[in-house]
């Protein structure tokens, strides 16, 4: 199996989806000749032509509005939003239209649209090239929301996204676009939505995370192990639908939980996970569930590594909860 990075894995996934099904098109800003500002769509225009790999005008609302139309027509569009920070001009189309089309038409119409968008900090992007807006979409009924943390999952989850009958917001943790490398099969495979991945077994604390933070989570778990704390690390992968069973099973075992994500704290997905753990495993809890998240500030430039959850911060939370 070839070892590739996440960009290559995503490119591979889009390419095989496009080869298999000629209803698949990809549209967005700079996805054509340039191959996307992160080069995820490199070479696709050459192979599939300008009718299926489409550079659009600079208008996210237009991109998503048009892609909804394409999906209603019967295409299987992938829309790229260049940075998730720029998804908001399309927010109305996503939240009021895309997410609600099936429901409001009584099931007559579905909108199978996959929106791919790089998210998260760590590339010195400042306020507008670093945001993690997943909570907005998790809170919106009608959307599926996923985020891979490694090349293998990236390919399998994007291929799974293409099989959904409903819209998917597919977040790509750009901080590890190139850094995360791994073996990825050349053939097609799909990673079922709603299945978390226990990437480290442990007995004392459950550490929940997703996306680029999974890398920090794993490191923090190693450090914790060195200090005698046995951490179970779960990569959620799919946020809606959520594999709550795997989460609860783990918490029932460990009785302690830390939730890690880089989005701002207040009303973020970490809060939801804590509420769910309370609802479903309250009597198992031996310590207060803790959150390690970004702060409730806009995303900074120079101080981004003060902002982003660090291994040290995670480790402290693991210790605090383990020694509670």
């Amino acid at each position, binding site marked *: 199996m070839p070892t590739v990075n996440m960009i290559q894995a995503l490119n591979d996934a889009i390419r095989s989806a496009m080869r298999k099904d000629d209803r698949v098109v990809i549209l967005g800003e700079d996805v054509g000749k340039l191959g996307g500002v992160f080069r995820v769509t490199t070479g696709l225009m050459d192979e599939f032509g300008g009718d299926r790999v489409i550079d659009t005008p600079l208008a996210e609302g237009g991109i998503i*509005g048009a892609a909804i*139309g394409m999906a209603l*027509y019967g*295409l299987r569009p992938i829309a790229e939003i260049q940075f998730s920070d720029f998804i908001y001009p399309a927010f109305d189309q996503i939240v009021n239209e895309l997410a609600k089309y099936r429901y409001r038409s009584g099931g007559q119409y579905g909108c199978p649209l996959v929106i791919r968008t790089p998210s998260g900090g760590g590339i010195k992007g400042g306020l507008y090239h670093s945001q993690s807006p997943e909570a907005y979409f998790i809170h919106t009924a009608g959307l599926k929301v996923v985020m891979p943390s490694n090349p293998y999952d990236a390919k399998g989850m994007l291929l799974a996204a293409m099989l959904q009958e409903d819209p998917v917001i597919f977040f790509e943790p750009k901080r590890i676009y190139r850094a995360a490398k791994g073996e990825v099969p050349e053939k097609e495979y799909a990673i079922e939505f709603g299945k978390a991945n226990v990437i480290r077994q442990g007995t004392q604390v459950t550490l929940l995370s997703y996306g680029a933070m999974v890398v920090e989570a794993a490191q923090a778990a190693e450090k914790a192990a060195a200090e005698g704390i046995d951490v179970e690390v779960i990569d959620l992968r799919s946020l809606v639908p959520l594999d709550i069973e795997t989460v609860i099973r783990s918490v029932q075992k460990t009785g302690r939980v830390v939730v890690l994500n880089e989005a701002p704290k207040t009303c973020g997905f970490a809060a939801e996970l804590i509420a769910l753990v309370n609802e479903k495993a309250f009597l198992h809890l031996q310590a207060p569930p803790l959150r390690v998240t970004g702060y409730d500030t806009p995303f900074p430039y120079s101080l981004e590594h003060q902002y982003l959850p660090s291994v040290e911060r995670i480790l402290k939370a693991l210790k605090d909860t383990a020694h509670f």
Partner: protein
Amino acid sequence: MAIKSDVRTEENLIQVVRDDGTVLDKKLEPEIGEADLKRLYYHMVLTRAVDDRLLRMQRQGRVGFYISSLGEEAAHLGSAFALKTEDWIFPQYREPGAAFLRGYPLLKYVCQILGNSGDLMKGRQMPNHYAYKPGRYLSVSSPVGTQIPQAAGFAWGAKIRKEKIVTLVYFGDGATSQGDFHMGLNFAGVFTLPTIFFCKNNQWAISVPLSRQTAVPTIAQKAAAYGIRGVRVDGNDLLAVVQVTREAAERAREGEGATLIEAVTYRMGAHSTSDDPRIYADESKIEQWKPKDPLVRFQKYLAVKGIWNAAFEKEMTEKVQEEVTKAIQEAEKLPSPAPETLFDDVYAELLPHLKEQREEAAQFKHLGKHKE
């Protein structure tokens, strides 16, 4: 019988039929067979009759809310009629006639207004917000303007697949102020998409007059910003609307791209049953527009053609009244949607968390009646 030039000024309004029913410009008169002319008249009468009855039912408290299309029948019926059956319509909320023309059953329409278990939308949307896939009629939503780029995208999909269909999207004058209007028309211009942008300029957006939506005298001239064609038509002249829409559809089908049609008409009542235009509008304007009634004009046209007469009118009216009465009677018998349907169609399948919520909700099923 192509229209010779794009007409974009305030004076230059494409008109085919005079108020007295005679034809102004034979060159522009669309060819429509007698059966179709009768069908169109039936739909004009039907649309107006349904509106009238449901408005009255709203006042009686039998309907929660209603939006009338009074006076705008020609604009939407003429344009919908000009399409082929394989074309698709992206509606706003004020074109019931277009839906009827596309086969949306009257009973289903009334069920939608009542939001009961007979409604294809399963009682989820407000009155006047329907979808009818068998008639290639997309889904009405409230947010103004959102359907515009969607219609462009749908046409784009067809173009990519080399299917020669056209999309037609309805919206009001108010919608032209939204970003979605701009983006939809711009995409259509850049990618030469087979879409007809059909603006029903009824000169009001609730209480806001057209002069507050735009500083230019016409909506049609906005086409110039997008490299698409712009046409201004008398929206109360059914024949003129058919003609300009046919031409736009033909051009679109032949790969010549999109057209923005501005159908000039007037809102002959309140915005909706929640509105009270006496607060903001000069009612004499409505009086001025009454002589331009699109139904009367079409009637006179048919009379000139020897199709319409008192007997025909009686037959139509009775047929329509009977149909409407029957649909209402049947619809009112139907119960509310079943409570558990609340959780269907959020996704194609019932996700686990919704299954859980449905089970939880089932405990409270006795709440199944509305507190109004």
